[in-house]
């Protein structure tokens, strides 16, 4: 039977116009594949439950802050930090979080290197990372640690990030009800929430898909839609959760995740400054050798990450010197999107 290519193309076009079902099915397949991988990464223990161990929330907070500064400086995606911290948390959890400041530093350098290689098209030399340790580690240390981490993790490297889940979940937003600008706004605000989540160790044991859903819920509450009714919003959220997450959105963990993210966000948005002590950062430096104190310095998250990154490198000696000298910034998730303030207030009430 002869079939003209033109007639087949027109048939295909007609099929494509019927609806978004094929796109949704593909998105569901991707989400389920990501969920399957996510389920295979299970952290048995974590530091916030074991305050007596050397790796404290404060140290983890500093590692996160430092990683944000490095990726901003080199122009990498901030999602690299999420990936890096995922590897960092897994590796240290496998070790029972028993580590020294030196090991934390070496682990963070190495997981950042791995995350950059996995997620970025640009790469970074081991020697540049070694320089960031101010001579504490050489390339050989980092390369050997890389093999050690890979072996400890069983070479399981693909932890789907919360932002990756966010991007997939947003495929389910009804195009007719949500403008492109609103869609972008939800994405950006959700992205900001995911960056907040990576800064706090209480989120480590929560599934990234659950965090992603919580960020979308919070973002949607914070944004006033022109056309998306409350009913349509609920339908959207129920559809994606039932299709991919079961009834997780009704769980107490989910509510707690949302509440904690909203609290963190409220502090940033309402005061336009950030008190790092709120997030377990008792020192503004990489005082890994001990819990060096220091007066917390509030910063404006709206400040340019790139402008602050250079000051980070000016303080690299803090890795080892445990100085209490103030730094210009503590914590730099990307600036929150320009959320319509009325919407934010409504959400926080």
């Amino acid at each position, binding site marked *: 039977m002869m*079939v003209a290519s033109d007639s*087949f193309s027109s048939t*295909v076009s007609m099929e494509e116009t019927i609806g978004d079902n094929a796109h949704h099915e593909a998105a569901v397949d*991707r989400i389920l594949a990501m969920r399957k991988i996510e389920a295979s990464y299970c952290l048995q223990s974590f530091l916030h439950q074991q305050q007596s161990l050397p790796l404290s929330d404060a140290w983890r907070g500093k590692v996160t802050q430092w990683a944000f500064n490095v990726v901003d400086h080199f122009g990498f995606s901030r999602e690299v930090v999420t990936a890096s911290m995922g590897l960092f948390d897994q590796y240290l959890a496998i070790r029972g979080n028993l580590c020294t400041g030196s090991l934390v530093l070496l682990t963070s350098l190495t997981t950042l290197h791995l995350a950059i*290689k996995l997620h970025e098209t640009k790469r970074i*030399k081991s020697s540049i990372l070694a320089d960031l340790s101010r001579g504490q580690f050489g390339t050989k240390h980092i390369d050997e640690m890389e093999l050690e981490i890979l072996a400890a993790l069983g070479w*399981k*490297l*693909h932890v789907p990030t919360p932002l990756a889940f966010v991007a997939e979940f947003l495929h389910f937003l009804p195009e007719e009800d949500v403008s492109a600008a609103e869609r972008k706004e939800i994405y950006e605000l959700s992205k900001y929430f995911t960056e907040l989540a990576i800064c706090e160790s209480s989120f480590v044991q929560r599934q990234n898909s659950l965090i992603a859903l919580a960020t979308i819920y919070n973002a949607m509450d914070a944004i006033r839609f022109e056309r998306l009714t409350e009913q349509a919003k609920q339908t959207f959220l129920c559809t994606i959760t039932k299709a991919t997450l079961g009834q997780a959105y009704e769980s107490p963990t989910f509510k707690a995740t949302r509440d904690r993210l909203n609290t963190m966000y409220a502090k940033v948005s309402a005061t336009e400054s950030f008190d790092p002590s709120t997030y377990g950062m008792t020192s503004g430096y990489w005082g890994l050798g001990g819990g060096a104190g220091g007066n917390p310095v509030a910063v404006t998250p709206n400040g340019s990450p790139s402008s602050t990154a250079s000051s980070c490198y000016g303080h690299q000696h803090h890795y080892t010197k445990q100085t209490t000298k103030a730094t210009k910034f503590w914590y730099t998730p990307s600036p929150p999107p320009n959320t319509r303030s009325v919407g934010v207030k409504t959400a926080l009430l």
Partner: protein
Amino acid sequence: MENYRIMKQLGQGVWSRTYMGQQKDTDQLVAMKKFKANSCDEGVDFKALREIKLLSYLQHEHIIRLVDSFATPDMAVVLVYEYAHTSLDQILRNRDIPLSSPDIKQHIRMLLLAMDACHEKQILHRELNPENMFYLEDGTMKLRGFDLARMHDGKPNTLLSPQAFALWYKPPEVLMRSQHYSFSADMWSVGCIFAELMLRRPFLMGQFTELSQLDKIFKVFGTPNESNWPDYAILPLAWHSTVPVPPVAAVSLDGIFTAAPNDAISLLKSILVLDPSNRLTASQALRHPYFSNEPPPTPKGNLILSSPPPEAN
């Protein structure tokens, strides 16, 4: 490495060597790809890391299964795959292996299923060619060669390297140095493999250079112009004498694939299209009548993958 016995070298690439091996405990045959130790001050080879990441995400009947991965003391990474007995390249080169029309249908169907799985999961393969299509003993095709593959969210502003793809399977937009290509680039390679299955030789054989490859493509599909490829003029090499002057008209594929059935040529014409936006997707191609028309594809278990043994006197 102590868990495996190396049996023989199977192949060698720019970055890696592949060996046939055997698991010592189970005697199971495996293929082992050893990436050359990285001397670029980058630690473990990033291509190996990305391949591990993608293969753990891409689990599919027609995608090679990663069995194990480890590093040798000299920092070389070894990826261990399920063992495949032959490749499409070996099948095509062995003239003792007959390749019927239903056989071709099954080969290209399995490739399209693999491509559909990749693209649905937003993975660009970027190195499709017969050497990366492997076959298990039961006839199941397994796609391999994910060294250059990468995640691609389909956003048009994502920068992609034009260095990917083997020359004869490289799409025209990549040859013209586009850095914004997409899944349709893989589909061009699929079209080239489909054509190769029908001709039993590579279809578009440029002579070593990308310019020669482009020339080969334009001689068959015609010079790009406003009607057959409206966006070609914005590509980086569009103004660098890559487009022949005076313009060349397309030749009829029916005249080249004289033995092929009409529905096969119809499918080929819908995939090998100069304008990437007009190429069929893998999912669309699988719904083409070619696959539902008679004859049905040969059951994969009946595919002939190696030479028949010589007849006894």
